[in-house]
Structure formats: C-alpha cells, structure tokens
C-alpha cells in the first residue's frame, strides 16, 4: 500500500532558527496519527508545509504522490486550521456552499454536511453570531467535503465540549475506515490516547518519538506506580518493609516498580493480608510518556 503522506529528511529554517530538523515520517491510508509537542515545537510549521502553504529548505514531502500545494494535492487534502475563522457576514450554509463550489462539489449538499456536525439548526444564521465551538464545527464540516484522502487537523477539539469531542472522534473513525489518513495535533492527551493509532512527538523541531502508545510505553520504560493504603495503625510496618516507597500527605505509600517487577511486588504486598486496606496500580500515563520524550532532548 502506498503511503498517503511521506516526509523524509525535512528541514525548515526561519532566518537563524531551525523550526524542523531532519523530520521523517510516513502515514498509511486509514491511519490516524496524533502530532504532539509543546508550543513552538514545529507542529503548525509541519502542517503548513504538508499543505504547501510555506516552502521548506531541504528534504522531500509527498502528499498522495503529489507535490504539496499542487492543484492535484490540494484536491485530495482537507485542512482545519487552529482557531478557524470565517467571514462573519455569511451564514454557515452560505460558507459551506462556497467551499463546496471551490472543491467542485454540489452546493446543495451543504445542509447535509452541517447536519453531520450538528449544526442543522444554526445553518441559516450568520457565522458572526456563532460561538467558538460552532465555528469549529463549520471548520469540521468543510473538511468533510469531497472525501479527502488526507485530513490535516490543527487542534481540532479546542473549544468543543466533551460530548462534541466524542462525536468528532466518531466522525474521524468513519473517515479512517473509508481510507482517509488523518494527522491531528492536540494538547488533550487523554483523547488522543484513546482515539488514534500512532503518536508522533515533536520537540525543538525534531521528531523524538514515533509509534503506537504501547511501543512508546515500552521504550520509555517508565515505572508503574503502586499505591498502597495501609489498614489503621499499620503504616510504620509497611514503610519499614518497603524502603523504596514514598509516603504522601494522604497516608498512601507510593511504590515505583519497573514493568518486569510488577508481579513480585504485588505478591509481596498481598502477603501482608489484612494490614493492607487498598491497592491501586497506575501505569505511566500518556502525560508521563510525553514529558519523558519531549524533555529528553530538551535538556
């Protein structure tokens, strides 16, 4: 299967600053990739290069086998910019009709597209009266025009309430099942964790990690945290038995343990029987893994 997006050795400089350094990645049809990184890590720059909005200094970028920004590439790529904006004097329906006409679609399908993002009621109101979340939905509706092969979404869920976020990811699932490759950036790590196939972490313009969450978790080898609540009056005994634990103000013992040591630790804890009131196992969160990879090179 030919990848929808191929980037190799991409470098982009803004005057003296290297915004992207030797970035390489591929995205297969139907795959959903999350692009993570702190502010200024190069996420938006990379998206603009993929869309052909700005030139790059060296490397190769191929979008659906075409040069980014060429007419053939633009026909197959849809984009949702961060803080998407529209002319306030147009209604949602007029704006989508316009975008449909620009992509050679049938303007009469505009109400249907707006209904898919839950804007059927407000379709005939001016965008100037919309809330930020409603504008974001108009932005989503325009990305659905003409079955794009690549979707580039810059912080698509910012400004959406939790229910709309779930609806949005359901929409993406449908698109990716049809073979659309999706590249999205987000700061909401938990939803990215649940709803994407792979994760790309950019830090200081470099791609520092790439893979599924399970891959990254194994590679980071961060300790799992065991939270032990001692029964009344048995705190001291447990602290003495687990010298590696730290005791929080909440009276819980926190025992860090490497992936392989989890079961022996659990056996040791359960051996204490009724002297342990409760036990929680916390695997490293996406936040932990993300901080691990994005900090490693920043130091």
């Amino acid at each position: 299967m030919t990848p929808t997006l191929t980037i190799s050795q991409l470098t982009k400089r803004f005057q003296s600053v290297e915004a992207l350094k030797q970035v390489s990645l591929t995205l297969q049809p139907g795959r959903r990739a999350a692009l993570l990184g702190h502010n200024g890590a190069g996420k938006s720059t990379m998206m603009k290069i993929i869309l052909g909005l700005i030139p790059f200094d060296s490397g190769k970028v191929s979008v659906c086998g075409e040069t980014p920004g060429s007419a053939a590439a633009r026909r197959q790529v849809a984009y949702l910019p961060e803080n998407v904006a529209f002319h306030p004097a147009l209604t949602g329906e007029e704006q989508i009709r316009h975008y449909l006409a620009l992509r050679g679609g049938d303007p009469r399908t505009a109400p249907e597209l707006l209904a898919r993002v839950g804007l059927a009621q407000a379709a005939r109101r001016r965008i100037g009266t919309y809330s930020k979340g409603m504008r974001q939905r108009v932005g989503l509706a325009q990305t659905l025009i003409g079955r794009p092969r690549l979707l580039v979404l810059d912080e698509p869920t910012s400004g959406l309430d939790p229910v709309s976020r779930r609806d949005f990811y359901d929409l993406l699932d449908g698109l990716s099942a049809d073979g659309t490759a999706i590249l999205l950036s987000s700061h909401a790590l938990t939803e990215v964790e649940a709803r994407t196939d792979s994760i790309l972490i950019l830090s200081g313009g470099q791609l520092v990690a790439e893979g599924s969450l399970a891959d990254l978790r194994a590679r980071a080898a961060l300790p799992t945290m065991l939270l032990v609540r001692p029964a009344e009056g048995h705190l001291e005994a447990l602290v003495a038995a687990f010298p590696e634990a730290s005791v929080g103000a909440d009276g819980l013992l926190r025992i860090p343990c490497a992936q392989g040591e989890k079961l022996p630790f659990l056996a040791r804890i359960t051996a204490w029987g009724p002297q342990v009131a409760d036990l929680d196992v916390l695997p490293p969160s996406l936040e932990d893994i993300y901080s691990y990879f994005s900090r490693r090179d920043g130091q």
Partner: protein
Amino acid sequence: MSQILATAISEFRIAFRNRWVLIATGMMVLFALVLAAAGSAPTGDVGVDRLSVTVASLTSLAVYLVPLLALLMSFDAIAGEVERGTLTLLLTYPVSRLQILVGKLLAHIAILALAVTLGYGAALVVAVWSDPSAIMGITSLVRLIWSSVLLGATFLGAGYALSALARRPSGAAGLAIALWLVAVVLYDLALLALIVTDQGGAFTTQALPIALLANPADAFRVFNLSAGQAVAAAGGIGGAAGAIPLWQSAASLFLSPLLAITLALAAFRKVTP
C-alpha cells in the same frame, strides 16, 4: 471558472450585507442628482444638448468618486482575509490566487457598474424630464458608464495591490487614501502648476499629454471630454484633452486595469499565510 464565479457570488453577498452596494449606489445617485439639478439651470445657448453638458459635469464627479469607491471596496480584500485568518484555509483549497483575485474583482466591478448606472441614469432622467431633446446625448452617457467601470477596475486592482502589500487593513486603508490623494488630487494640481510656470513651452506641448495618459484618472477625463461634444464646457486640465488622439486615451483606459491586476497578483503572490 466555477471557482471564480463562486468567489464572486460570495464577495457580492458580503458586500451587500456590509451595505457597500447601498452606500456606493446611494453616493453616486445623490451626487449625480445634485449635478444634474445644478447643470439644468444656466445652459441655454451652449449649442449642445443638455445631457452632454451634464455628462461633462458627471465626468468631473466620476474622476473623484469612482476611484474613491473602488479603493474603499478593495483595500480590505486581502489584508482583511489575512487579519481574520480566513486566507490560510482558502489557500489550501484547489483555487489559484489569480482566481481569487478575479472573483473579487468581478463582484466589485458589478457593484461599481450598478452604482454608476443608477447614478448616471438618475441624471439622465432629470435631464430628459426638463428637456426631452436631451436624449440625443445618450451615447456620451453610455460611454461614461463603461469608461467609469474601467476606471474603477484600475483602482480596484490598485487597492488589491496595496491590500496585499500592507497585509493589515489599517495600513491598507492609509495607503489607499494616500493613493487617492496623489492620483486624483495632487497629480492634477502639480500638472496645473507646471503648465502655469511653463507658459506654453516644451512641457505643455511634449510632456503634458504623456503625463495625462500615464494617470488613469486623467486618461478617463481626457477620453470622455474629447469623445463628447462638450470639451468647450469643461475647463482646466480638460482643455488639453483636444490635443490627445482619442485612441491614445482609450488605450490608456483599457490597459491600466490589466496593469493594476498584474501588480495586485504579484503583490498577492508574496503574501504567505
């Protein structure tokens, strides 16, 4: 082609909602009526029909008003899209920058054409109502309409170029007003001053025709005055109109919109979102 048409329809709708259609038409009708009313009083024995005299006055009005309306409509065209943040998304669509510009131009030309046709039409009604024989001058009025649209197209193109260069609406507005002052007001004042100091010398005979043709506003005035029968009714710079062949001022009128749009496209291509 469908992209150009879609852009034009969208732009026209925006201009309509922003009351630009109303403002442009209202201004043209108001000023044309004032001129028609003023022009219908003294004529009598000038030897030309009443409408031709009105056309001479309307020409002087159009030289000021048409470029102003065109610049007011166009200064926001690109800078506004940049500031609102709508340009980035638009440029990821399969539509070229030329198509975007031409689409906007078509919408704005349509508005200008509507405004001048209604404005001059109002003057026609007044002239014919007070003197039915004034209908003889209808050809000069039609000529004034299409040449006004060409003049407007030139300043629309210039406005887009300034809009792309400034990249912010406030800066673009300042540049547009400056262009209007220089091209429409100061240019003629400077020429008049030079004519007075030159006293009919080499400047007046050699350089003046070229200077008049180089400025689209003057070319418009010269074209309408020399094509009509009312040169005598106009004073000032208009007096020089007779010295310039009609085809030259016509060529200037037709070429300057193309030049302005070319400049606008070059400036627009330099805008990176």
